[in-house]
């Protein structure tokens, strides 16, 4: 263990104070709209960071991410309504999502680059259509559960999950495993030639990523009072994660967090004024970032800092 520099200590303190402030928020602010808003940000952070692991670090653009979010929601919701404590139900949902991901991953990772992306997109659509056909009825919480509904419980769970996701990505980025993943992202053949077990690492990334997505899905199932079972399988969950991650900075720790905050802010703000207009703006912003600023906001901040330091 190396000695922590002053800078790292400062950061750690700032993060702790920030987390404490977020934890005290439900006590300080009694307004549900504020809590709902922060809840959405926290859920989005978890979703974006989970996608960032497989796409940002391991470089495998998974366009079927919603399938694992949806599966986590489906399993957790069913078990929870059946009487299982929510944390256990969410863990089970994450477990099922991860197990399926590993099963699919062995075949899907035969595909490289864009072929992996469109293959997983098709898999996601297969799962959405199938779930929509088999479970076509809307899922609503029982009345007893609704009357006992506490938003603050959802909020704390979301806060814990977002913190765990960010911490997991931080730990991963600093680890040997994470470095191996980044080597695969840069050049899979070269990484394999220098002794990196590509398939194993890609599966590890997929398992971590889909496990967190499954937990996020479980949180969604715990939060929403009624929705169609196929809704969490909708590709827009994947696309949201992709947008937030790229706008913030793909393959970085804080990029998806920044992206999620900006995305939810703009989405809520713009949606109030112009329905659906936010997607037009995000589409254009996204294209601009891919073409001009592949590193997202994080890269922009880095450039600005260098300019100022001159």
């Amino acid at each position, binding site marked *: 263990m190396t000695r922590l520099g002053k800078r790292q200590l400062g950061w750690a303190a700032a993060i702790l104070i920030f987390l404490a402030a977020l934890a005290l928020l439900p006590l300080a602010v009694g307004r549900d709209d504020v809590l709902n808003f922060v809840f959405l940000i926290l859920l989005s952070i978890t979703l974006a960071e989970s996608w960032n692991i497989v796409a940002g670090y391991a470089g495998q653009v998974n366009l079927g991410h919603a399938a694992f979010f949806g599966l986590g929601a489906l399993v957790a919701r069913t078990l929870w309504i059946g009487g299982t404590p929510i944390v256990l139900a969410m863990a089970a949902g994450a477990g099922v999502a991860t197990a399926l991901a590993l099963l699919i991953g062995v075949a899907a990772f035969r595909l490289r680059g864009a*072929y992996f992306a469109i*293959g997983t997109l*098709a898999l996601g659509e*297969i799962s959405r*259509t199938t779930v929509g056909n088999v479970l076509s009825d809307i899922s609503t919480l029982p009345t007893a559960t609704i009357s006992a509904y506490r938003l603050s419980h959802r909020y704390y769970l979301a806060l814990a999950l977002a913190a765990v996701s960010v911490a997991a990505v931080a730990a991963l980025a600093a680890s040997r495993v994470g470095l191996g993943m980044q080597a695969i992202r840069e050049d899979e053949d070269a990484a394999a030639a220098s002794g990196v077990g590509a398939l194993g690492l890609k599966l590890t990334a997929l398992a971590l990523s889909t496990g967190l997505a499954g937990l996020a899905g479980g949180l969604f199932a715990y939060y929403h009072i009624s929705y169609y079972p196929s809704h969490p399988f909708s590709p827009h969950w994947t696309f949201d994660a992709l947008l937030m991650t790229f706008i913030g900075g793909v393959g970085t720790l804080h990029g998806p967090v920044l992206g999620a905050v900006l995305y939810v802010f703009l989405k809520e703000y713009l949606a109030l004024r112009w329905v659906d*207009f936010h997607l*037009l703006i*995000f589409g254009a912003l996204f*294209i601009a970032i891919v073409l001009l600023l592949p590193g997202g906001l994080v890269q922009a901040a880095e450039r600005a800092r260098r300019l100022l330091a001159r």
Partner: protein
Amino acid sequence: MILAQQLLLGLLIGGIYGLAAAGLSLVFGVLKVLNVAHGELIMLGGYGAFWAVALLGIDPFASLLLVLPLSLLLGLALYWALFGFVVRADEETRVKNSLLIGFGLALALHALAVRLWTADERSIITPYGGAVISVGDLSIPVVRLLSLALAFALIGGLHLLLTHWRWGQAIRATADDWQAALLTGIDVRRAYLLAFAIGTGLAGAAGTLVSIGYSISPSIGLEWTLKALIVVVLAGLGSMIGTFVGGLFLGLAEAASAAAFGGPYREVVGLVIFVVVLVLRPRGLFGR
């Protein structure tokens, strides 16, 4: 007999699948760029025809004469504004960046269509829309039969263009080996531009046929992109006639699975074929 009727309808829509895939195949084969907003371009073409019919009162099939050139222009504009930048990168980055840009474009076009035309489902009503030709126990809707014929004519025209026109040959040479094409003095960038514009034109034409015989809404983009991708994976690159046959095959397969497992599963069969083919041939049937 019901099965035969369902298969017939599958075959009729299959022609449009083929046309939808032809544009994507051309763009992917020549530019090595995967435009996932292809379905949104089809959607825009459909609305273009819808507007032409609603505002100008012309015959829906005649609206092709308007939609096709406008789509070509849209293709030129998109190439200059976006995809022209993508083709400067090496092939690996090219495919990935085009995927991302197409995705952003799809999002923006979808939002734009909702603003312009609302999220409602629309289709063009023709005076002869209900007409059918009866052959034995089968009834063939005239509009869809015409659409199939037009789709075939357009694909045939494209085939002739690619084999006989000077620039068509340049496009095929670029698709085969752009470096060799460059060495023989072909303006590769011009070939890219033309191929992209023609691909967009074909998407517009496909959209017109979709809005006449079927229905359009701002959210059909992803569905049509996937259909086109499935056909491209099935038929491979290089032959437009082959792509058309692949479209017919997908239409038949969908109809057969709808008959066997029920209507809601008709989308699944194509996707399953797609995933299986991809996993068995990991570089895709695209790969040469």
